[in-house]
């Protein structure tokens, strides 16, 4: 089947029910999207499917057929993604960093639909993404900083 990943069309010959995560990681060699739980519980595998954040560890690859996937590797193509990445670096958000691909994709999706999120909006949008190192307070700060920069017309 054909899937568009980060604006490139890929021919992917895997079983229809293989989760997108494993097609990305093991078949296509795109390892930026992480495996954390396999049950849609931790958010490490978050990617965008037609702009919507999804958990790629439980979403069959068939559901991405003829649709557009965006992964961490191309999140900087989006203004919000660039602003989020810049804020992540400025605030030194990551510790081990393993969950941060998923955090960044979720945060970008949040700013794409809600450019000025409140603390509660951030908590609601980001609580599907676990960070075991505990970077949550910096993630909150970084999302707000990215939102402010985007509003002011800077992209980070």
């Amino acid at each position, binding site marked *: 089947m054909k899937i568009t990943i980060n604006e490139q069309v890929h021919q992917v010959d*895997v*079983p229809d029910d*293989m*989760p997108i995560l*494993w097609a990305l*990681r*093991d*078949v296509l*060699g795109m*390892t*930026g*999207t*992480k*495996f*954390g*739980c*396999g*049950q849609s*519980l*931790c958010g*490490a595998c978050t990617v965008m499917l037609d702009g919507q954040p999804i958990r790629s560890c439980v979403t069959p690859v068939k559901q991405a057929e003829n649709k557009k996937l965006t*992964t*961490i*590797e191309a*999140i*900087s193509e989006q203004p919000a993604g660039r602003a989020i*990445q810049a804020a*992540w*670096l400025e605030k*030194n958000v*990551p*510790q*081990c*960093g*393993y*969950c*941060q*691909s998923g955090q*960044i994709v979720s945060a970008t999706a949040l700013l794409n639909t809600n450019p000025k999120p409140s*603390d509660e909006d*951030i*908590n*609601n949008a*980001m*609580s*599907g*993404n*676990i*960070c*075991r*190192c*505990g*970077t*949550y*307070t*910096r*993630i*909150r700060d970084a999302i707000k900083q990215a939102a402010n920069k985007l509003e002011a017309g800077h992209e980070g």
Partner: protein
Amino acid sequence: MKDNIVNISRRGFVKGFALSGLVLAVGLPGLSAEEEKPKYGRDAMPNGWVDNPLVFVSIAEDGTVTIVAHRAEMGQGVRTSLPMVVADEMEADWERVKVVQAPGNEQKYGNQNTDGSRSVRHFFMPMRNVGSAARMMLETAAAAMMAVPVSEVKALNHEVIHQPSGRKMGYGELAQAAAQLDVPERSSLQYKSAEDFRYIGKNSSKNIDGQAIATGQAEYGMDVRLDDMVYAVVAHPPAYGDTLKSFDDSEALKVPGVIKTLTLPSSPPPAVFNPLGGVVVVAENTWAAMEGRKKLKIEWNKGPNSDYDSKAFRQTLEQSAKQKGGKVLRQLGDAYKTLENAESTLSAGYYIPHLAQAPMEPPVATAHFQGDACELWASTQNPQASVDTVAKWLELKPEQVTVNVTLLGGGFGRKSKPDYLVEAALTSKAMDGKPVKLVWTREDDIQHAYYHTVSYEHLEAAFDENGKTQAWLHRTVAPSISSTFDASSVHQMPIEIGMGVVNIPYAIPNIQLENPAAKNHTRIGWFRSVSNLPHAFAVQSFIAEMAHQQQRDHKELLLELIGDDRQIDPRTLQDDWNYGQSPEIYPIDTGRLRRVVELVTDKASWGKSLPSGKGQGLAAHYSFVSYVAAVVEVEVSDDGEVSIPQVDIAIDCGPQVNPERIRSQLEGACVMGISFAMLGEISFKDGVAEQDNFDGYQVTRMDGAPGRINVHFVPAKDYNQPLGGVGEPGMPPIAPALCNAIFNATKKRIRNLPIRYQLEA
């Protein structure tokens, strides 16, 4: 060796400082008098330390300085902090520094076992030596090339300047010549003065892996890919000590992508670092291996722990803790008699269940067995133990095994045990040398951790008519980590009772500390902060209970117990361990403990008036030779939901080498402390962990994180002051401070963790 250099040079990369391959002797020079003395700190670690610049630094012709990070990065920032020390001391520009990760080789690099909050504490000075020697060699080379006295040149920001003439040479130009020089004697090294530091103690150097992480380019153990690689998962025995009886793989082999199945031998307890055994499913991709595993039909032989029931075991622990007796750990005066005759007494017990580290990246290793050698790539905290354990299982010599260390997606103690590397190596061997990536799923990780112990702490105190504390009794009962190495072990080791049982520095005239026996029923291992968690939870909760009973302000009573400023030799508290540090250089300093309490209560406006349903809680704890105190503020809703608007945490860890990463470690410790206090529990039924993913084993998410975390530092006098640990000491005060805050908000006392639904009406 020579060919190797030629090859490297051909790629335009002169491995300037790697030419000689000289390795300095480990530890202190071999004076016989020195050998008689007990060794402490970095000198006492297996394979000690190395400070040879030729081992740690190389410089390319374009001036790129490559610094070796020999400790594992798992979020604590060590790949930034230690290379940053080298860069600063050698006057390298951080923007032109690359960091490469050392494989497991302690003979070459010194101790690499990244645990115990030791990396910066042990390697700050060796890394300064590396940087200083490198700078002096560059200056010597520059002076020779410019034909000027070395006293007239000075290294500054990636150049050596001839001061009278202003002539400059870049590090890239100097590398070749500098590498030919002898490494200066350690006694001749000149160090930068602290006011000239550009990175040490500053927040000026960005996390070396930040950009790669933010763009998804960082390579973790999970991300290793080799040509022709296959993927594997293991069906492990359900209970600790169970073994494989038989299995039917006919359905598993029908799953598209499954290549074959094979078995791993089971090792009887004690677990040590041995694999658990079971059935391996090898496939063309991870998902196929996981799907294949679901289709296995396996029968297991039940082992000695197949009836482990953690609910029943809790009763056993509690009974032991409430009975007089057990191994006496420390005795001062007569606590029993004082308790019997006291004006008033208080008694309470505290329980913490098993916990799983659950790093976001589950254990994973990739192995390539090549007959007389095996190369592995893995996220491991302990690469040398990985080399040794894999070598043993493959019947190879350690020098035939290479363990490349990737970034770790969290560790928290789990990845200091290399059982999963052995599984990968044995599987690659069984696959005739095909490279194998062996992945633990989250279910494997949570069901087969080396768990944090389970504990019951019983405390009693006696007061005189003025409310002064006259006696203290603490009975601590918990299976010991030592049981993972010796199945007969039932008492806590010195390192466990030295985590907040014997070494509490409180000024109380009668003290009785006891440790009744407890058997283990699962693999017990290190979890961030280790036994400090239950001990500090009990002791710091109990002191708050004492204050309440005696109608005293908690802070005031805590400071009274800490008492006058004094430096206590930990050996006088029956603590011969003291986190491996010298009792002379690292006495327990009650003044430092007092100061963190005063600092944090001041910053958090301790005692401020709060509306009903809100409360502040305090706790302080000495661990990993650092002093930490925390004030947690909570709000508890009418239906018992806890939110945490603010945490203040203060640390005295001596000099702060990388303050920004110290802050991040303490922020993380607050969240992880809240996480296990609010939600963390692994329970066992029929020998099997009842939780297997983040639905059952819950951890704190964004919506449960504090609104703000304020980190406060006690400034150090200078960089000669001994360094304390950072990665772990932030955690122990959090759970008691949280529960003390909940009490102040609700008058409900939490003595059993996790808190979870206990506050619901």
